[in-house]
């Protein structure tokens, strides 16, 4: 991979990390309503996706995809701060504060929104793909799915239908080892999700989701396959999330150390870049720049007004108004 491209991906990973760290700090101070699921630790997976999906594609992000959402917004429209504002439930958010962390969407950048009913869009993505196919468009329809959602019946309905209809669906499976506190190997017949997908007959690959170069190339290959009209593709990212469960850490100390210190996606990329002669100061500057940008986004979100109360009953129906209180 070219040095410049790797630096771009590095910047994106730092944008995600800074976003989530900034958000987490605000959440702890009680400034962010609702629940918080962060993508900390999964930056390489999300940066790889963001760098390969076009605004004309369609992706369904999962609940840890603030970073992917912000990158899509920033790359295609230059307004990543609207993802932050959405998480603060503000009128300037991508959904005017009505969706929040679990339902941020903007189809003009390819973001079709998350489902807080985990994994439901595993079947919704089929329709976006089918429409693209019927219209002869080269759109890739991508579902970002956690390992936990593989337990849904919809997982199998979806893979089967995508296979029999040869649909342009990209299954980006984020296997971070756990669904809340249930280890992937206890919740499923295999700890390798590809094993459960292979029977449907389309390509199923695994990649180290913390290795940015490998992840980027694997995503590029998957999307190339789909754009060439060859049907669905399943890619499993092996990664790990920093966030444990609500009451703190529950995973073995050695495991935590491995993923946070020895196999952290940003630290791994630091090494790669330094090997290629990038100055440590330059890397530190990137980190600082992204934190500064996120500080601006947080300020924007905090200063933005909340939604007007008339929005409480807006857009229930296309053809009827719903009465207020």
């Amino acid at each position, binding site marked *: 991979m070219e040095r410049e491209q790797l630096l771009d991906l590095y910047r994106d990973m730092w944008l995600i990390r800074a976003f989530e760290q900034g958000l987490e700090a605000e959440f702890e101070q009680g400034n962010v309503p609702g629940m918080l699921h962060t993508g900390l630790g999964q930056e390489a997976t999300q940066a790889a996706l963001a760098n390969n999906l076009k605004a004309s594609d*369609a992706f369904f992000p999962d609940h840890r995809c603030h970073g992917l959402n912000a990158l899509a917004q920033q790359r295609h429209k230059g307004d990543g701060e609207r993802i932050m504002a959405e998480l603060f439930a503000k009128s300037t958010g991508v*959904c005017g504060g009505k969706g929040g962390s679990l339902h941020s969407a903007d189809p003009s950048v390819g973001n079709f*929104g998350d489902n807080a009913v985990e994994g439901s869009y595993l079947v*919704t993505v089929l*329709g976006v793909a089918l429409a693209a196919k019927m219209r002869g468009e080269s759109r890739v329809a991508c579902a970002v799915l956690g390992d936990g959602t593989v337990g849904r019946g919809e997982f199998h*309905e979806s893979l*089967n*239908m995508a296979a029999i209809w040869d649909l342009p669906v990209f299954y980006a499976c984020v296997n971070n080892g756990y669904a809340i506190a249930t280890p992937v190997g206890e919740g499923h017949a295999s700890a390798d999700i590809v094993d459960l997908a292979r029977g449907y007959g389309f390509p199923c690959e695994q990649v180290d989701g913390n290795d940015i170069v490998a992840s980027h190339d694997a995503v590029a290959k998957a999307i190339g396959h789909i754009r060439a009209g060859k049907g669905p593709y399943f890619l499993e990212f092996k990664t790990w999330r920093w966030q444990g469960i609500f009451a703190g850490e529950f995973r073995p100390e050695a495991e935590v150390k491995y993923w946070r210190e020895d196999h952290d996606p940003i630290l791994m990329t630091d090494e790669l870049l330094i090997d290629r002669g990038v100055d440590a100061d330059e890397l530190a500057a990137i980190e600082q720049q992204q934190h500064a940008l996120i500080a601006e986004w947080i300020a924007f979100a905090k200063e933005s007004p909340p939604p007007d109360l008339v929005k409480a009953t807006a857009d229930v129906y296309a053809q*009827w108004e719903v009465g207020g209180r």
Partner: protein
Amino acid sequence: MNDTQLDANPAPSDARPKKPRKTSFTKALNDALDLGMDRFDEMFLIGEDIAEMGGDFGVTRKLWAKYGAERVRDTPLSEAAIIGTCVGAAMVGMRPVAEIMFADFLGECYDQIVNNAAKVRYMFDGQFSAPLVIRTACGGGFGGGPHHSQSVEGWFLNVPGIVIVAPSNPADAKGLLLASIESDDPVLFLEHKALYRARSDVPDGYYTTPLGKAAVARTGTDLTVVATMRMVPMALTAAEELEAEGVSVEVIDLRTIRPYDAETLLESVAKTGRAVVANEAPKIGGLGAELSARIHEECFSELSAPVGRVDGLDAPIPFSVPLEHEVLPDETDIATAIRATMEASR
């Protein structure tokens, strides 16, 4: 949009007039789908065995031959994927029409209907619509047993964002289905199985019957019966019987269950001062309860008797024909409720 008149006296099946041969409910739906497919390039049909076979009830017959397998799509037994496909396609501007073979199977795709179809417009701040139609065969009376006979409108009544359409006769079925296809909101289109063979005059060509508008199926002055689907012809039969007893009954066919036409309903009750709500589903928590509550809330001073209720018993639908008859309400129950309401009047 032109409204259509309800055929107030559908011919009983054993005494069908030879000429002119009226159109069946099934054929009216089939015509609507054909006209819709012809008019809207973005429309497609999807469901189990709807293509070459034409569906379990023959509603999609011949459309596969005419429009091809791309636009008339058979699926595996995957209800969640059928409706998920519809929602996703609708989010990018297609107009899918799904067939869920029996309404009892809506549980398999409930999440897609309630959490996605009904909410993508709202939760994403108007950035998406879900212009899809879910056609499904509902209702009892033919020995289908507990999993092929239910009236499911109550399962969806509490879900903002969904439109529930429930025709009672062929002419409305055609016009309402075309209006549902045109609708930018998701429509659950209920087809009562006992009505598939009902016949009436059906206008030729493309027309729509407005969503959200009830029809006065019969005018009267003493009492209003409000009904949907199969309860409408039953209410009309009961009204004839009561006419002979000197009671003039008005029958309101709601046609759209959500959002329902409160204006037409309440105007009628304000005029007659009495109401009976007829409903095939169990009594608790369904359409009958909603309508009865609404009438009491808004017409209390005009009412000369409490609203009468006709409902299914609070039980699943059993297989045995006499047991099923016991559970489901019929025209005799409606006539009885009308008499009781008349007698209870102040």
